[in-house]
């Protein structure tokens, strides 16, 4: 139980990677605020699962793309669970398509949630995190934020922004005892990336991944747990790839 007495907020935690992180944090002893935007039932199920296992959790609805809503989310989490000291910015959306085919503003909502959500929530917790002097922020990003991929321009740009924000926030907050890191997930079969996998069940992608398999949400979550907890005590501003070697490889990695 490495996160006993810690209180966490996980955004977008009703399903996918966020859900796995919420469950993992609770398993390590943290009380968890499970944020959702529209999937209340799913979020309540996550809460129930945590409670059944003997943990403490609450579900809080909020759209982190909206700064006021994000601030209210943090306020409610504090009120219901006690002072937060762990934030996982996980909420993310995608709106894939060729730039040529997409509406000119197709980037806006993706940017508002994927980057804006992390910015808003970080902004909302920072005063109390800085005052405590012992808090962590983990941003769930993507290997896609460091490289290009056809049809993912706005998603990739939003994750690139999140990666830069991770480094800047880490540098600004380091002296206040707040660590900020990111997990750069590779291909992880969740609803978010459904479209990417559509063509042939992801076979052609799998062939390009050195480890020849996709990540599980638990594998991404365990990297997030490491960055959230005491084992990464001297690590900040780090972008930790959990991608089966995908971004370590140049091209297809062979002739």
């Amino acid at each position, binding site marked *: 139980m490495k996160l006993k007495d810690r209180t966490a907020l996980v955004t977008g935690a009703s399903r996918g990677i966020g859900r796995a992180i919420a469950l993992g944090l609770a398993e390590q002893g943290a009380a968890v605020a499970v944020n959702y935007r529209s999937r209340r039932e799913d979020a309540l199920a996550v809460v129930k699962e945590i409670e059944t296992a003997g943990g403490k959790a609450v579900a809080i609805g909020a759209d982190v793309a909206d700064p006021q809503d994000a601030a209210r989310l943090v306020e409610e989490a504090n009120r219901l669970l006690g002072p937060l000291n762990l934030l996982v910015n996980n909420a993310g959306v995608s709106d894939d398509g060729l730039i040529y085919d997409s509406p000119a503003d197709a980037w806006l909502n993706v940017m508002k949630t994927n980057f804006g959500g992390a910015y808003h929530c970080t902004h909302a917790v920072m005063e109390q995190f*800085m*005052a*405590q*002097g012992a808090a962590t922020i983990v941003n769930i990003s993507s290997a896609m934020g460091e490289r290009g991929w056809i049809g993912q321009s706005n998603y990739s740009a939003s994750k690139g922004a999140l990666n830069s924000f991770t480094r800047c926030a880490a540098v*600004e907050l380091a*002296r*206040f005892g707040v660590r900020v890191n990111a997990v750069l997930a590779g291909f992880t079969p969740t609803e978010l990336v459904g479209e990417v996998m559509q063509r042939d069940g992801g076979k052609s992608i799998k062939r390009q991944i050195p480890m020849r398999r996709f990540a599980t949400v638990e594998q991404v979550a365990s990297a997030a747990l490491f960055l959230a907890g005491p084992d990464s005590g001297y690590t900040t501003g780090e972008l930790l790839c959990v991608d089966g070697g995908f971004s370590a490889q140049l091209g297809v990695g062979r002739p």
Partner: protein
Amino acid sequence: MSETLIPTTTDYLSAVQAAVADALGIDEDEAVPEATLLGELGAESIDLLDILFRLERTTKVKITVADIADLLQGGIPDEEFGDENEVVNDTGLTHLEKVLPQFDRAQLTEPLTAEGVLGLFTVQNLTDLLTERAKAA
């Protein structure tokens, strides 16, 4: 047997000196009471934040940069505090002499600008503000 320890001004000075030394990476004995934080000690805005959050953690007294700005300007509107070039006028200087015991306009070698006001703030001034806030709490 127990006794309640009431922090004295000396304790608050030590707390400020420790916070300043830690935030700026200097020795505590360099953080002398008369040293200006942003001027002589070279603190930048993030250093000042760091100092204030360190003090909050050690003394449980919260002081914000806005509190310091309020003390220095005393609620006097910008247009009454300085002239159109943001040079602090007689009203402003009189107020500063009231809130910063060490400040003496006769010692100014050049006109004081609004931007320069925060630069007058010393280790001792912060200690005084902290002591006053602690008493009020």
